[in-house]
């Protein structure tokens, strides 16, 4: 080869490298632009209203602290403390219980394993309305337990108060904790346990090491359940309605629901919630600082399941059954009592079994259109969120870019910690500006903006779910693939995708199910004439059509379960054997 061609080739190479690096830079720029538009702007503009109500004509002042001053009441500080306690309690409880279920299902020979993991997923779809309704119908004075003669006064006073609120929120967080921890457990081969045992460690040491390696997933799960719980109002309002248990979001909802709507005060409460999310991120960073959790490579060993033995096997199964009955049985009972059995527990004479509500709802055009629309939106949201969430999870688990990592983490948690209704209001502030109208960019009132808001709503939890697994993938795998001549995409598909395919499907289904029944964002942002199914359900419930509304809810949940079954069925049939083997046990 002559000198000139060599030079030419070198030049071509460097040009290619430049193109590649600008493409890479482009990816991150694209990602941050998306995050900026989806999360930063709506959250920032909403929070800004606390200081500058005049910005969106929400008051006369351009700069004021009035909204914060109005929070200085004797009840607000205790309500913030209550909220923190509920958040920490629900986060810890969900993580411990969800983690234990994940361990039992992934690592022991407990019977009926598909049933337990299926139950966790179903739980995810149970709206908190049905959970609260179920408990109420069971425990209320003259409720079902009273009718059956079961003494329930003690249980009633426990459930209708702080403990009940924390418990119900923990149950809501349970599927998330389960999915996060089981994703991470799958990636953790038997070699770590073996190493501990070889070096003389007992079973306890081995468990401790496994536990320590799960830290990113555990913290992910704690932080997200914490953030979900501090933003909740519905559960506290229904279960602890008369229990004198003020939570911080009460002030926020009173500001938004009572008229005139007071966005500055709602935004001031938003700052308080933001501070709480900040605390969670801080605690997490302290705990995970300077450690590596990359254990997911090509040589993870098959895990041998712990044999529970003759007595412990049924004991663990009974515990799981108890958990599933308590967590899933209650909302199912709520749905049944509202939609299938007329007048259950009431003084109304006949307690007939009826499917009228279902035939009525199935025949109603008010169900079909909204349900189809929500399915389409759910699928589009899930696809976009899994893609973006994967990028975000890489950023969160990467070693470089500490500042952007923390910023993204805080942003994602803040988005969860802000109640949906104010998050949606932030979307209206941002995307209904006269300026964007003048530019011909009118997104508010279109399916596109609803989709973007759905994506923003689902991104934080999906990202958190993926962090557990993505944080485990060893970098050497795609490098090896590249060394062997594969392109970047090929390397990713052949080395990394097989390792994370299963968590990706879980994340897709989680997002799909969550979006299908999402309410607050749907209510504020749905395009005129095209209501999503959650809006129709709420409308029916608020018109006292409890039977019809609940029947619609149950049908939507069944549909989501059918999609879940279909996807896993396709996975079992068509996924390459090697993909399916990851996390397999012997």
């Amino acid at each position, binding site marked *: 080869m002559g000198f000139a061609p060599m030079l030419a080739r070198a030049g071509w190479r460097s040009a290619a490298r430049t193109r590649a690096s600008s493409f890479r830079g482009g990816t991150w720029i694209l990602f941050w632009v998306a995050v900026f538009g989806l999360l930063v702007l709506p959250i920032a503009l909403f929070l800004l209203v606390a200081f500058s109500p005049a910005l969106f004509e929400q008051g006369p002042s351009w700069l004021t602290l009035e909204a914060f001053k109005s929070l200085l009441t004797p009840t607000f500080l205790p309500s913030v403390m209550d909220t923190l306690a509920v958040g920490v309690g629900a986060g810890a409880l969900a993580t411990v219980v969800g983690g234990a279920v994940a361990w039992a299902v992934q690592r022991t020979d407990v019977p009926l394993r598909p049933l337990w993991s299926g139950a966790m997923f179903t739980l995810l779809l149970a709206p908190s309305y049905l959970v609260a309704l179920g408990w109420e119908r069971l425990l209320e004075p003259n409720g079902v337990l009273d009718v059956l003669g079961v003494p329930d006064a003690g249980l009633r006073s426990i459930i209708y108060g702080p403990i009940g609120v924390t418990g119900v929120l923990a149950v809501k967080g349970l599927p998330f904790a389960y999915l996060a921890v089981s994703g991470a457990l799958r990636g953790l081969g038997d070699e770590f346990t073996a190493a501990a045992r070889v070096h003389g460690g007992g079973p306890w040491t081995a468990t401790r090491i496994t536990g320590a390696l799960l830290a990113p997933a555990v913290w992910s799960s704690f932080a997200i359940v914490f953030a979900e719980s501090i933003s909740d109002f519905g559960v506290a309002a229904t279960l602890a309605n008369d229990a004198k248990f003020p939570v911080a979001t009460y002030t926020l909802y009173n500001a938004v629901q009572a008229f005139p709507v007071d966005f500055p005060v709602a935004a001031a409460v938003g700052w308080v919630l933001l501070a709480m999310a900040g605390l969670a991120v801080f605690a997490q960073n302290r705990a995970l600082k300077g450690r590596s959790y990359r254990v997911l490579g090509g040589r993870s060993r098959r895990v041998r399941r712990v044999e529970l033995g003759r007595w412990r096997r049924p004991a663990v199964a009974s515990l799981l059954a108890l958990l599933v009955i308590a967590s899933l049985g209650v909302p199912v009972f709520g749905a049944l009592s509202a939609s299938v059995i007329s007048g259950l527990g*009431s003084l109304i004479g006949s307690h007939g079994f009826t499917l009228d509500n279902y035939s009525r709802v199935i025949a109603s055009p008010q169900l079909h259109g909204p349900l189809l629309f929500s399915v389409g939106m759910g*699928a589009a949201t899930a696809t976009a969120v899994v893609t*973006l969430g994967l990028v975000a999870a890489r950023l969160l688990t990467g070693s470089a870019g500490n500042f952007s990592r923390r910023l993204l983490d805080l942003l994602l948690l803040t988005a969860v910690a802000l109640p949906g209704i104010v998050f949606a209001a932030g979307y209206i502030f941002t995307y209904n500006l006269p300026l964007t109208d003048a530019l011909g960019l009118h997104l508010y009132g279109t399916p596109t903006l609803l989709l973007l808001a759905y994506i923003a709503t689902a991104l934080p939890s999906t990202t958190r779910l993926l962090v557990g697994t993505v944080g485990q993938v060893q970098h050497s795998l795609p490098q090896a693939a590249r060394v062997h001549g594969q392109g970047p*995409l090929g390397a990713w598909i052949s080395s990394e995708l097989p390792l994370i395919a299963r968590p990706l499907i879980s994340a897709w289904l989680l997002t799909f199910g969550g979006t299908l029944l999402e309410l*607050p964002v749907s209510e504020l942002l749905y395009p*005129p004439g*095209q209501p999503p199914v959650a809006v129709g359900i709420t409308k029916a419930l608020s018109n006292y059509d409890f039977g019809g509304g609940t029947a619609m809810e149950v049908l939507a949940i069944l549909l989501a379960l059918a999609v879940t079954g279909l996807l896993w069925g396709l996975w079992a049939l068509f996924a390459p054997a090697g993909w399916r083997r990851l996390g397999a046990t012997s």
Partner: protein
Amino acid sequence: MVDRKQTGRALAVVAAAGVALALAGCGSATTAGSSSSATSSSAGATSGAKTPLVVYSAQGYDSDVTKAFTAATGIPVKLVDDSTGPLLTKVQAEKNNPQWGLLWVDGDTAFASLDQQGMLAPYSPSTTLTAAGQALVPADHSYVPVSTTVMAAVIYNAAKTTTVPSSYQDLTTAPYQGKVGMNDPSQSGPTFPFIAGLMNQLGGQSNGMNAGEAYFSQLKSNGLHVYPTNGDTLHALETGQIDYGMIQSSAAAGEILKAPKSASFDPKVVYLPKATLLPGVIGIDKKAPADVQAEARQFVDYVLSPAGQKIMQDSDPQGDSLFWPIVPGIQASSALPAMPEYQRIDPTFWGPLEGQVNTWFDSTIK
């Protein structure tokens, strides 16, 4: 570093694919949307390029009324049907660039507040309303009452009790101890006007809050139960947790139509002096283009016409259709009694107190 770059490129491809998929999903959603709105506004399409009227409404009969309006006038309507709370939140969040043309919900306090913020275009329809209707019309005609319910109807279980109250004071006496329930104003929209109405009745605007607060404190010491909304209070009545529930008149009348009577459950309604009017109200967006405002005025006229009133009465017979008409010559549903003794409270005085009263109720009464 290297691995990050490599995956970055791979991710770019995946991200692009994802965005494309998302856009595809979005595109199909848009198509579905335009086709469905095309069917609902087909009459508008044939009559030329009329701007669609965007209606924000929480009424159970709104879908049928808007369809009939489009059929009668050729004006296409885009309906946002939602609960009152989210609709008002939307309207307030859109304040610097309103997207609604017409707002139709129960309760005039919210409209008084919108008027005070200069957000409503006044309109006086040519229809002369009944006495109750005229009492509800604001001096500056900034909004239009088109129907009314009252707050509260006292629904009681006649199978369990023969004691029927004749005044609100009765409910604070021994026979009613632990048997009365009402809704939580921070979760039930119609309940603040009820509390404000009692405050107005007992102390007037000069001393209203104090006298009203004293009354509710008496109720509380007599064992008042507070449930989230109309539906929950009704459920408590059905299950025998309470014998008397103070709820919106349409919900009470609906329960009597729906609930089967039995030896242990026989709901009846009594109205105590005075019931506070809770009107169904329409307001027009002042910032809407002139042609949309004209369409909105036509809509108001249609709603007040015999044809419009008939659809309102037929469309949701066990729910929102159970209102008292305020258009002369229109008979109320046979499920409703004659209009009880009523009062109208000044929404410009009481409206702004809602947040304060709800917070007081939450910390003191609940």
